């Protein structure tokens, strides 16, 4: 509670704090989702064909993780600044469920299949499409949270 109040105070009483948190949130998801999408595009055979998906995953994963930490912390700060508005929102809880699903999926199924030496092509493609759909839904959920109250 105390922490929540401190964060809410900081974001609500400083003119630039809320937009700054939003910008970190946007920059973070651009890097986080973008780096996951690179692995997905490779799994769909759409780019970077000179390298295996497993190798691309190894390169992008540290950036994904760092970015996700920024997104989650800035997102939590935005949420704590006006909890009642978000909790009453129709879309926000949906976004949280999809986000949870996307995170769990990303670090279990997606990671496992992307790291496989010779995954069946169909499996690779289905896993990549589900990943893209989940993350794009999270972005849509974020925007719709602001538009449908």
């Amino acid at each position: 509670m105390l922490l929540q109040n401190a964060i809410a105070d900081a974001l609500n009483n400083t003119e630039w704090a809320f937009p700054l948190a939003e910008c970190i949130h946007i920059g973070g998801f651009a890097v986080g989702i973008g780096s996951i999408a690179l692995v997905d595009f490779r799994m769909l055979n759409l780019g970077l064909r000179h390298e295996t998906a497993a190798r691309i995953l190894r390169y992008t994963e540290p950036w994904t993780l760092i970015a996700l930490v920024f997104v989650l912390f800035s997102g939590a700060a935005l949420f704590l600044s006006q909890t009642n508005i978000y909790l009453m929102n129709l879309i926000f809880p949906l976004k949280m469920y999809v986000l949870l699903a996307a995170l769990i999926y990303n670090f279990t199924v997606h990671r496992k299949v992307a790291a496989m030496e010779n995954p069946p092509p169909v499996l690779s493609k289905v896993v990549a499409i589900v990943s893209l759909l989940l993350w794009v839904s999270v972005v849509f959920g974020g925007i719709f949270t602001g538009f449908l109250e």
Partner: protein
Amino acid sequence: MNIAHSIQSIDFLTAFSESVLAYPIVLSTHLTCIALFGGMILMTNLRLLGLTFKSLTITEMVTGFRPWKRAGGTVMIATGMLLAASEAEKYAPNPYFWTKMIVLGLIGVHALIFRPIVYNQTEELDRSPTIPTRARVAALLSLALWIAMFTMGRLIAYWEGYEG
């Protein structure tokens, strides 16, 4: 303000900005492009800085993403124009919007300067034992411009000068 008013009064733009669903869908698409292609821009630039993807050549990174970046850029600009035109009267006096347009112009200047000496010379860069300074400068400037771009985009919503 007259031109701005005329633009946003075009029937389909008025219908668009008044629609409960169309406006957020187009805005979400605009942001989805940032997410999908932001990663490509970042990774290409990090490769130019020698920070990641070292087993791939610069040529592979730059040319491999080119068609995707073009498609993404086209969708981003088309959705962005739709968003701005439908609320032209709000955007016209907004300093953040015009700063964003200047940054967009600077991204064009960046391309004009660095395409001939970096992005179209990737094979030469790959042959060079160390990554030349001009490639690193191009990458750093590109990153700075894109950060400025989405920051200004977000700040557009915060300007309170318009009273409509």
